[in-house]
Structures are given as structure tokens and as C-alpha cells.
């Protein structure tokens, strides 16, 4: 099997003190959507943060396009083409939507207007609100700003930590549609989701984590069909 585009391979580590992840492996291929699900405290967000370099790994590796990036800082990984949308405080609230996008592209020295145009096409509502302070927008719109900000560096991988936390079901469906659209442009998506059933529905690949270990790994459809997974994690 060919090496996936981004892989956190057999990651073991935590925030100092006891390990949270135990030889956990997360991978995503080009243009695919990979979803990490699992019960509360399973280490879903931790696994994603480990892939992004926000915690120190004791064992294991993170490789992007075959290159070992385990020792790189999160900022350096952004420069390598990884985009990250944190779960909370993922926007600059007092700055306008447009300024949020500009700040997302801070490391770019070239013309950003084309990328900004693409983001306004993806999220038309942001174009209407581009002069408004991002902190004044609704929850769903703020998430769009957050995703848009991360896309401004033209990343090859986009990592989303619970993008639908606290938004209504309608807005959630809308966000998932946009995420599929982003994946179709060839960007790999890795996300952690609380709404496991809906997320697995759009996932090419699903990871069910329990206590920092891989419990089930399969395609999204196969996990949804698996009676054990359904019974334990999807409520029957």
C-alpha cells in the first residue's frame, strides 16, 4: 500500500505526565476526508493536535508527503501547507471578516486577492459581511470565517477540530457540504467530530478512537454498517 499523503504513525504521547495517545495512527490521502470519532475523552482532539505538532510525541512519527515533520513547530507546519482550525477562539473577533482572511494569509508574500475571491465564492455570506467584525457574526458564520482563514495559506491539508460544535443541524449540514466541496479541490481534510453519524456519512475514512488507541479503522460507510460500531458509538 502506498504511503498516505499525511500520516501520524503510531503516535504515543501526552501533555507531559501520563500518555494520552497509545500508538495511535491517523492518516489521510489527497482529496480525502478522514474523520476521527469516539466517546468523550478518547483523545480525538489530542490525536489531531499531535498531528499538527501541538504536543510532544514520545514515540511515533508524523509524515507529510513522505517527509518526516515530527520535529517541526505548528507554525512551521503551516508553512509546509497544513491548515488548522481550532475548536474555540478560532477567529480574531474585533477584526473584520476581510481582515481575518488577510491575517490568515500573513505568511504569504504574493497577491492574495484570488484566494480571497475563492473563499467568498465558497462562503457567499462572508462577502456580504466582509466589513463587519467577525465577533458579531452568528456561530455558523464564525465557523465559516475560521475555515476561510485557514484556507488563505492555500493548504494541502485542512484540519478541523469539531467544526460543527454548537451550531444548529441545518448549519451543520451546510458546513459539511462546504467541507466536501473543499475536499473536491484536492485538499485533504482531517477532522474531529462529535456528530459521529453525519460525519462518517461524508468520510472516506473513519477512525474510532477509544482511550487513545485505534479501536476501529475503515471507510466511513463500512463503519456506519458495522453493527459493533453502531451499537457502541452511534446509539444503535
Amino acid at each position: 500500500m502506498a504511503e498516505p499523503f499525511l500520516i501520524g504513525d503510531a503516535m504515543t504521547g501526552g501533555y507531559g505526565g501520563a500518555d494520552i495517545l497509545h500508538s495511535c495512527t491517523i492518516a489521510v490521502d489527497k482529496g480525502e476526508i478522514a474523520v476521527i470519532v469516539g466517546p468523550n475523552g478518547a483523545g480525538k482532539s489530542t490525536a489531531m493536535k499531535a498531528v499538527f505538532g501541538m504536543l510532544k510525541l514520545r514515540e511515533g512519527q508524523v509524515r507529510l508527503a513522505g517527509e518526516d515533520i515530527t520535529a517541526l513547530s505548528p507554525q512551521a507546519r503551516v508553512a509546509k501547507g497544513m491548515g488548522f482550525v481550532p475548536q474555540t477562539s478560532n477567529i480574531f473577533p474585533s477584526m473584520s471578516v476581510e481582515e481575518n482572511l488577510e491575517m490568515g494569509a500573513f505568511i504569504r508574500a504574493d497577491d492574495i486577492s484570488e484566494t480571497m475571491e475563492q473563499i467568498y465564492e465558497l462562503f457567499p455570506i462572508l462577502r456580504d459581511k466582509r466589513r463587519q467584525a467577525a465577533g458579531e457574526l452568528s456561530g455558523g458564520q464564525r465557523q465559516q470565517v475560521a475555515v476561510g482563514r485557514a484556507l488563505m495559506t492555500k493548504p494541502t491539508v485542512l484540519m478541523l477540530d469539531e467544526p460543527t460544535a454548537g451550531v444548529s443541524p441545518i448549519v451543520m449540514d451546510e458546513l459539511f457540504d462546504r467541507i466536501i466541496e473543499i475536499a473536491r479541490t484536492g485538499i485533504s481534510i482531517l477532522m474531529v467530530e462529535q456528530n459521529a453519524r453525519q460525519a462518517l456519512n461524508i468520510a472516506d475514512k473513519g477512525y474510532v478512537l477509544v482511550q487513545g488507541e485505534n479501536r476501529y479503522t475503515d471507510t466511513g460507510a463500512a463503519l456506519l454498517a458495522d453493527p459493533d460500531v453502531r451499537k457502541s458509538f452511534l446509539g444503535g
Partner: protein
Amino acid sequence: MEPLNALVSVSNFMLVPALAYGSQLALGALGITLIFSILRFAHFAHGDTMAIGTAAVIGGTVFLQARGVSIDPLPTALLAVPFGILVLAAYLLATDRLVYRYYRRVKAKPMIFVMASLGVMFVTNGITRLFMGTGESRFEDGQRFIFTVREFREFTGLAEGLALRTSQALTIIVALIAMVVLFWFLNRTRAGKSMRAYSDNEDLALLSGINPERVVTITWVITAILLVLAGTLYGLDKGFRPFNYFQLLLPMFAAAILGGLGSPLGAIVGAYVVAFAEMGITFAWRRVLSYLAPEGMEPSTMMQLLPVDYKFAVTFAILVIVLLFRPTGIFKGKVI
């Protein structure tokens, strides 16, 4: 003519001086608010930093005067301002390297930063006194008045007169320009926006590739510019004395907190409110009211709420009231 005389009198003794004083406070309060939003601590060394910057300007002025350089009718000190800014920026950056950078690295609590800045305050104060002594230095030269009370009276024929000092007009104009440039910088330039982003959400700014050390450096340089301008204008207006500059710490903080910490616009509004409150409450209204009161009802007392010596009590009262009833200030800033 009586209301007009009242207006001229109140302008001469209160409104114009308060406008100048408010502008000087505003420049200082802007520095406090910027440091609070970027470095996230209350900069107690602010007043004495202003003093040492002004001392550098006075040094430059004396040097220029000795060489016969003059831009009459404007004060020579204006020419020495760039030199003062350079000295103060170097001083602030050196302090940052020697003191604050260590506490940033160990992620110290804001209170530790405040205490460190208290130490910096004492050292800075000592250095200033070493060079300038504790007495008053006057360095105003050039033409003192744009128009005097007598010229105004002869021109208008009113009983009351209004004088406009060069230093007052200069203060208001320079402060206005500095504010406009600062707002342009914060809202229109990449560096300014990165400062706002860093103030809004530090972690996300890091993720976006904004270099915090660069943001901090820019903040100190802007503070140096604001403080040298504020200190020079205050010194031209009222004379330079290290202790007076230290005392300005209270009204500057009151202004920044009243306006809402972290809000530049708030710092400006707060500064004028503090200045007008200080002057208004300690002003003897007798003369003004005697023009306005009906015949036979003229006040017999000074109509002064508090003696001038108590002007800092006014500021302190404002500070306490704001912290009790609206700790976020007028423009919804952060709470200390």
C-alpha cells in the same frame, strides 16, 4: 454681551488648558492601552518613561540652542523630538530585552509583569534625576503666544480676554496628527493589523505566522513616539519636573481604564473626560457665573468645588467609580 464674556472667560481659564492637557494625557493613555493589549500588563513605568524621553529632548534642545539653531516662532524642542524618540525607543527596547522578555519566555502572570515594571519605574526615575536633577527645567523658547489676552480684548472689544499659547495650539495639533496616523497605522497597514490580531487572539496569531517578538518591538517603538510627544508637549506647556511626570501615571491610567483598556479610541475619549473633570471640578466658577447670574444674584464665594491641589483626587474618584460600576470602561475594554 454677558454670555459671550462668560464663554470667553471659561475658555481662557478652563476649556483651552483642559483641551491641551487632555491631548497630552491622550497620547500617554494610548501607550498604556497599546501595551496592555499587546504585552498584557499594566505598564507602571509609563510616567517615568515619559520623563526620561523628555529629558533626552531637553538635552537635544540645549545642544541645538548652544549652536544657535532655531525655528522661531516654534520652540526648538520640536527639532529635538526625533532624537528623543530614538533615545527612548532604544531605552524601551533595552528594558524589554533585559527585563520583560525573560518573563514572556517563562509565561509569567500579568501581576509579575506589573511588579517588574514597578522596578523599571524606580530605576528609570533614578536615571532621569541623575541627569536632570529634581527641580524644574523650562525649555520653551520661540514665540510664547499666538495671541495674548490684551490683543484678544482689543480685537473683540469684550471685557474678558482669551489667550492662546503656542504650546497649547501645538499640543492640540500634534496630538491630533499623531492620533490620525496611529489609527491609520493600526487599521490600514499590515504591521498594524498584525498588532490588532495579536491583541485579539494570541494563539491564532501565532498559527497565522505572526511573529510575536516583532509585534512587541513595534509596540515599544510606537510607545516611545507617543510618550516623547506627550512629554515634550506637557513640558513646553507646564515645565519639566520628574516628579510631575511620575504623577501623570494616575490620570493616564484613569483615562485608559475609563475609556476601556485595549481600546485606542477609548483612551482618547477617557483622557479628555479626565482632563475636563479635573479642571472643571477644581475651577473657580465665580467669574463665569457672575456674568450669567441675574442682577443681584452673583455668587459671593469662589464657586470652586475643590482646591486645585486636589485635582488628582478627582481622577482617583473617577477611577474608583469606573472600576466599581463599569470595569470594562466606556468602549467595553478588558478588565484588569
